[in-house]
């Protein structure tokens, strides 16, 4: 038992810096902060929006930055997959990255090209010095325009994804969130990001090509950029837009399971983890909703209320209870997790329930409201320091219907949130939920339910 307990800490701590964890966490928008969100609001770089040859393009110019970071969103994420296509979105993205060795070519010449899958879209991230970003964009356009669907290339992509499948299995938080999503979403958002070994092995190159033909249209493309912006960048984006054929996609399915109050759905799985982990999954408003600011505030409240605050900031693995607002899929969702290595899970579940009920019953006190506004704003700022995070968030929020200057808008929304808003949102969203429980495997060879 002692060994297992340690193992979960190790796995969890390592995973917090790993790709699997990053994928699991990226969707969240972080909360925030400070005594004076208004002061921070005044200083945020202002993002602007335009269309470049029909492609939505948001840019946050930061002339002091040495690099340019660009997110290329294609609305070809998990929610575009049919139920028998689990993994096809990832397999296609990996196939594109291998086409003409574009990922390695960019890396060798001093840049980064990577991708991540989420419910709504796949987003490719390109980072380089300003003078190189346009040539790299042209390289990527070639791969995107004509992916290599040969058996060899698709097979190599498949092997890479299969190699990654186990990455998140030992991370109880990632497992729990995936369990909740699988139960809650009645569209592809509930499917595992990279599919399963069996589903990947079933997918052939024709299915991958068909998914590409169905989803990779110019109307599915959106680009956001942060950092130093070279004068030739917009022309480069215009040329890049020609890589995909004209066309628009149908709106995404927003089908989800109806949640029930109190002791509703409970799902249980066993994994090689050292301690039980418990996830409560809730519905949540989309970023364009008037309740977004209040939900961010609730995220910071639930993320920080259960740990003492005197010492150094706890890492995720050190938190007893925390919360994440997931708006990478439509509709958005919200999870609270309980770390069984630090607290008795059923007691903690009861405590969280009492808190959410109390939040719905009466407004929080004004000093608490101000404190959590500050925390929510600070978290947002702290989580958008890199060009990758900044370009991701301004692009994601704009797709959700926020104005181009989305980060400032969000800070303003948090700042304007009232105690009545918090109470209303807690009542509307935090009373019905699904509970996902990840238990340590009891015997060798146990299969997860």
């Amino acid at each position, binding site marked *: *038992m*002692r*060994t297992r307990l*340690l193992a979960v*800490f*190790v796995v969890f701590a390592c995973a917090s810096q790993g790709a699997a964890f990053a994928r699991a966490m990226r969707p969240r928008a972080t909360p*925030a*902060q*400070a*005594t004076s*969100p208004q*002061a*921070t609001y005044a*200083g945020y*770089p*202002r*993002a*602007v929006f*335009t269309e*470049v*040859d029909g492609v939505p*393009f948001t*840019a946050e*110019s*930061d*002339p*002091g930055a*040495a*690099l340019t970071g660009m997110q290329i969103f294609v609305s070809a994420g998990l929610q575009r997959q049919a139920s028998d296509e689990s993994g096809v979105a990832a397999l296609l993205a990996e196939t594109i990255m291998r086409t003409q060795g574009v990922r*390695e070519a960019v*890396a*060798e*010449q*001093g840049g*980064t090209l990577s991708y991540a899958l989420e419910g709504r879209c796949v987003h490719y991230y390109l*980072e*380089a010095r300003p003078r190189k970003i346009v040539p790299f964009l042209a390289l990527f356009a070639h791969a995107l325009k004509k992916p290599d669907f040969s058996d060899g290339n698709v097979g190599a992509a498949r092997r890479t994804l299969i*190699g990654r499948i186990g990455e998140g299995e030992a991370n109880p938080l990632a497992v729990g969130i995936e369990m909740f999503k699988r139960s809650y979403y009645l569209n592809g958002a509930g499917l595992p990001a990279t599919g399963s070994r069996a589903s990947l092995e079933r997918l052939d190159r024709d299915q991958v090509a068909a998914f590409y033909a169905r989803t990779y249209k110019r109307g599915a493309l959106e680009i956001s950029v942060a950092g130093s*912006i070279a004068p030739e960048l*917009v*022309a480069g984006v*215009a040329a890049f837009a020609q890589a995909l054929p004209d066309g628009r996609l149908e709106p995404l399915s927003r089908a989800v399971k109806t949640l029930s109050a109190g002791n509703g759905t409970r799902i249980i799985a066993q994994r090689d983890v050292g301690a039980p982990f418990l996830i409560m999954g809730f519905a949540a408003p989309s970023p364009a909703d008037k309740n977004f600011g209040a939900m961010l505030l609730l995220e910071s409240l639930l993320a920080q209320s259960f740990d*003492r605050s*005197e*010492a*150094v*900031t*706890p890492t995720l*693995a*050190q938190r007893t209870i925390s919360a994440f607002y997931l708006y990478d899929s439509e509709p958005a969702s919200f999870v609270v997790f309980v770390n069984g290595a630090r607290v008795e899970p059923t007691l903690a579940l009861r405590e969280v329930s009492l808190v959410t009920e109390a939040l719905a019953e009466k407004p929080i006190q004004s000093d608490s409201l101000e*404190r959590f506004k*500050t*925390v929510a*704003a*600070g978290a947002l*700022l*702290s989580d958008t*320091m*890199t*060009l990758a995070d900044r370009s991701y968030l301004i692009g994601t929020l704009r797709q959700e219907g926020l104005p181009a200057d989305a980060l400032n808008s969000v800070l303003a929304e948090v700042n304007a949130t009232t105690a009545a808003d918090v109470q209303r949102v807690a009542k509307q969203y935090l009373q019905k939920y699904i509970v996902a429980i990840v238990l340590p495997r009891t015997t060798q060879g146990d299969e997860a339910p």
Partner: protein
Amino acid sequence: MRTLRTRAMIAALVIAGCARSAAAQTVGAFPNGGISVADPIGGVPVVAVELWYRAPSVGFGQSPVPSLGRLAAEVVVASKPLSGKPLGTLVAESGGRIAVNVYGDSVAISVSAPAAAASDLVRAMTTAFFAPVVTEDGWNEARHEVEQEALVGSFNPDDVTRDAVFGALFTSGPAHYPVLGSAHGIEAISLDMVRSFASRAFRSQNAVLVVTGAADASVVKTAVAGRAPLIAQSARAEPMLASIPAHLPRSLTKTLYDAGGAYGWIGPPIADERAATALDFVADYLFRPEFGTVARRLAQTQPQASVSGQFITLHDPGVFFVTFTATNPSEAKGIVDEGLAAMREPLAAAAFQQALDAFEYHLLSDLQTPLSVADNFGWYAVEGNLAYAPGANDNDGAYFHAMRSLTPAYVASVVRKYLDKPGVTVVLSPQPPVKKGSAS
């Protein structure tokens, strides 16, 4: 229409950009010792405030006490002063995050927070760490977390092999000892030991205060202005801490859950900027994740394997450190060895130039955030060469000059000089599985 739209977009971006410009970096000195570095950076309105102290992580006494440095810093963060709140609480309430990082010869306290809180936090941090208060409550709060961190570290292959390599490379001095040690060892640390360490290490004469990000350099001045009682008049900064290299080579075996290995070599001192930069280049070229030639080859043959390599720039000497875990460790070792052997000969000119270009990009990418810039200033200042910090002089300082001076022949010569036979070789051997029914 397309042209007009494009022009309008460019104009909008230029206008948006003109509003932001960064002021120059400044270096200052506290009365009677200690330095400050301010580097205003545009972009996100976040500020990093760090305090670095040159201090052996295992304490100043004859007997090493692993974890003492970390524990002392965390206790100070959590301790409530006579008036006001603990530093940890102040940071949390400002929307910021606070961390303690400890190395063999230094302790760093770092905060990132909204820029609006910069002035208050610089003042709070210097109050807490120029005249540290250590309380029983703070002690109780911090000790449990440090024990957990030590526990986690004892299962981390990188930490285990690093401690083994450094322990064998040096016979004494801060680099010889593990920074964290065992969770059990922490039980032997008393509150008095913590108090004694804190009062000697955490004082202005021994401090490097770094403020980077969206904050004006004046916040540093206002933080120390009129605060004479906090800035003692007598004691000096701690001297540079020497670690004595052992007679090498040495080989050893460590047991963990993973199979793998590690190498360590004695490298150049921080004063030899060109050689140190050459070894940074070698580490980047061979081992950078998803880019390095060794990293990529290993990923292709063993997707579950991991490898990392870096030159650790220290006062004198530095250390080149490589560690890997793999399902087939002998194959992985072969890939590492071949990669290193290839560097003994100069790279072809075109390949070298491309690799150098990529190296420069990686540096810039790693210096994106106020925290990463502050980390570099703190580290290089403590090791005795602040001017050589990457990021100094707006990425046009000594480090970038040294990088641009590299040639294929020079890099190969540095590899032959320093990375010939490993000083220390570690074999990481997987622990046999525990049989059911055995004691846990």
